[in-house]
């Protein structure tokens, strides 16, 4: 829209389509309810609160909206998993834990446009008939917590929240619950346990998903901040109109956060599938830094498999024939990158140029996962520190070539054997880094290291076997 002026240096790129981030960095826009209402805020709520909840769910289903928290599950379908004939209270939780490294989108929504989230959330709550909802916000957003508490009060004063919302007879209470620095609280069942006041160990699923048995044993819908804002967009535009925008199987806009070695890192809101990774990195982000070339890309948050910029991918022409392509040719929607073995997850793109050592990058990720494992499953709890030790040893030049394979085999033995998807999240990076950049890992190793003990105790025990070199 032409009447929107952005702060100097924060103007969107011409190829962006700002919907969710429409008011981010906007001149004169504040988190207050007045700013939001002046911009047409809460009009959608006023409209839909007069309709049947089921029709809202239908609209969201028609839109094809998929969750933006990482897994990309269809939002409308998730809502229908609440058991038919349910008599227990239904809860809705907004996942504002935003802890996947490389992801930084929800932060801006809750700091600069909190009412957008609230409107989306109230609509979603009405659709699933929840009368109590929780915003689970990570502790590292103290400013946002203040802003959100004010926003909740404002919404209540304007009768968008509380008893008998806008005279519809519908009651809703939303509270803010803050985390305490644990990544695992982003996992929906860990999050639920965190709210229940027990250790946030993820729960086993299937057979029971939170939509059937969640918070306090009641049906619970967990949705990401951006997803809930998208719900508002769906109702604003109409499900069918929403579905026609962008990639067929993942319509709507997406917020992409780019970090690392590009000229202009930051956030970009694009129509899903409208640009490729190459266009994102070269056009929107200005390309690599002076004198550098791109080496590797993590396309969807730290747990996505890394893509090498030189790897040859197989694409399909419209006539069905196979063509060679690279990561730069892959469109940015939810599914395209998945065909090439990675995922676009939460939209956090981490870029590394040719000055970077891949074993170092992996060591950093291993440290993250070793620190964040909740410790409930043995493979994850024990495997992650082991992988960290191995990658540290490789980085220090003290590893043997076999250690690279050992590292990968530890990862292979974690994924698929754990309670929650953290098991995959921690092993995918290891599998991808050690396979795609194997030579670089091997170059840091030496066969003689296989004979050398790793710690003082074994050194003592083996002192007759090994020789000082």
């Amino acid at each position, binding site marked *: 829209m032409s009447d929107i002026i952005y702060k100097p240096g924060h103007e969107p790129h011409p190829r962006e389509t700002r919907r969710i981030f429409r008011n981010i960095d906007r001149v004169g826009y504040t988190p207050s309810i007045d700013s939001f209402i002046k911009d047409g805020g809460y009009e959608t709520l006023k409209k839909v609160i007069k309709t049947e909840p089921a029709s809202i769910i239908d609209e969201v289903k028609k839109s094809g909206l998929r969750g933006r928290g990482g897994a990309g599950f269809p939002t409308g379908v998730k809502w229908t998993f609440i058991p038919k004939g349910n008599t227990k209270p239904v809860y809705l939780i907004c996942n504002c834990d935003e802890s996947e490294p*490389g*992801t930084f989108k929800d932060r801006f929504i809750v700091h600069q446009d909190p009412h957008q989230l609230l409107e989306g959330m109230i609509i979603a709550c009405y659709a699933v008939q929840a009368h109590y909802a929780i915003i689970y916000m990570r502790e*590292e957003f103290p*400013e946002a917590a203040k802003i959100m508490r004010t926003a909740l009060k404002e919404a209540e004063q304007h009768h968008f929240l509380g008893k008998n919302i806008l005279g519809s007879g519908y009651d809703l209470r939303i509270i803010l619950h803050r985390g305490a620095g644990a990544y695992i609280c982003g996992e929906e069942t860990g999050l639920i346990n965190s709210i229940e*006041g027990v250790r946030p160990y993820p729960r086993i699923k299937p057979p029971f998903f939170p939509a059937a048995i969640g918070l306090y044993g009641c049906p619970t819908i967990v949705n990401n901040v951006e997803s809930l804002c998208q719900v508002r967009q769906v109702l604003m535009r109409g499900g069918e109109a929403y579905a026609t925008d962008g990639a067929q199987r993942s319509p709507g806009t997406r917020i992409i956060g780019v*970090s690392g070695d590009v000229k202009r890192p930051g956030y970009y809101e694009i129509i899903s599938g409208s640009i490729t990774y190459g266009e994102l990195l070269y056009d929107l982000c200005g390309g690599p830094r002076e004198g550098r070339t791109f080496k590797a890309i993590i396309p969807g948050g730290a747990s996505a498999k890394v893509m090498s910029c030189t790897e040859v991918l197989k694409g399909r022409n419209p006539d069905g024939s196979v063509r060679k392509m690279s990561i730069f040719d892959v469109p940015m929607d939810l599914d395209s990158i998945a065909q090439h073995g990675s995922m676009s997850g939460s939209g956090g793109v981490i870029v590394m140029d040719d000055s970077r050592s891949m074993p170092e990058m992996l060591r950093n990720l291993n440290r993250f996962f070793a620190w964040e494992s909740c410790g409930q499953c043995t493979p994850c709890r024990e495997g992650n520190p082991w992988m960290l030790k191995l990658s540290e040893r490789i980085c220090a030049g003290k590893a043997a070539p076999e250690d690279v394979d050992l590292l990968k085999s530890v990862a292979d033995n974690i994924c698929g054997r754990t309670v929650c998807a953290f098991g995959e999240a921690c092993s995918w990076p290891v599998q991808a880094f050690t396979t795609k950049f194997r030579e670089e890992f091997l170059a840091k190793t030496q066969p003689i290291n296989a004979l050398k003990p790793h710690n003082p105790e074994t050194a003592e025990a083996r002192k007759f076997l090994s020789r000082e070199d």
Partner: protein
Amino acid sequence: MTESTDAISALTVEHPSPGKKYYPPFQPTAALEKEAKEYVSMYPEGKELSAVLPIIHMIQGKFGYICPESMSWIAQQCKCTEIHVAGIVSFYPGIRTRCPGKWHIRVCHTIACALSGGEELIGYICEKLGIDPKELSGDEPMGISPDGLWSIEPVECLANCGFGPNLMVNDTLYSQMDKEKVDKLLAEYAEKA
């Protein structure tokens, strides 16, 4: 540090810290109890346990950390056992059992910030503040300057990855930091002290 004989005392040990002079000692008062009740009332009937994290945050905010006495007080507010509170406190990286400095610095050292120099900043800040980087390992990594004014803690992703390196001083985020900016920032905070 005293020798602990059982699980509860092992988890609820009072740790010495030079930062304590900047925070009031924990004292259960009626006002505190009232505030805790307000948190309990945010949750459905009979779900007092849900208030355990908000109450812990309240205590940590006022007194800097969770001391053993406050743990048993929190347990009373949430109608749970002391060991349950200890289990929560020991789980979350964001909850401390040692008093931080007046200015608590959290530096992100996860991948995106590391790409822009976050890891090096940690060493640099430690050196400037006279903190031994060895303290930044173990279960509760935190280094405190000898005068108790500063503490530093490496943390994982602060969700501002495009604008690294990121760090927080108490509740305020500072992004795109470098050594010069850190020098200026520390000088500013030293002034405020």
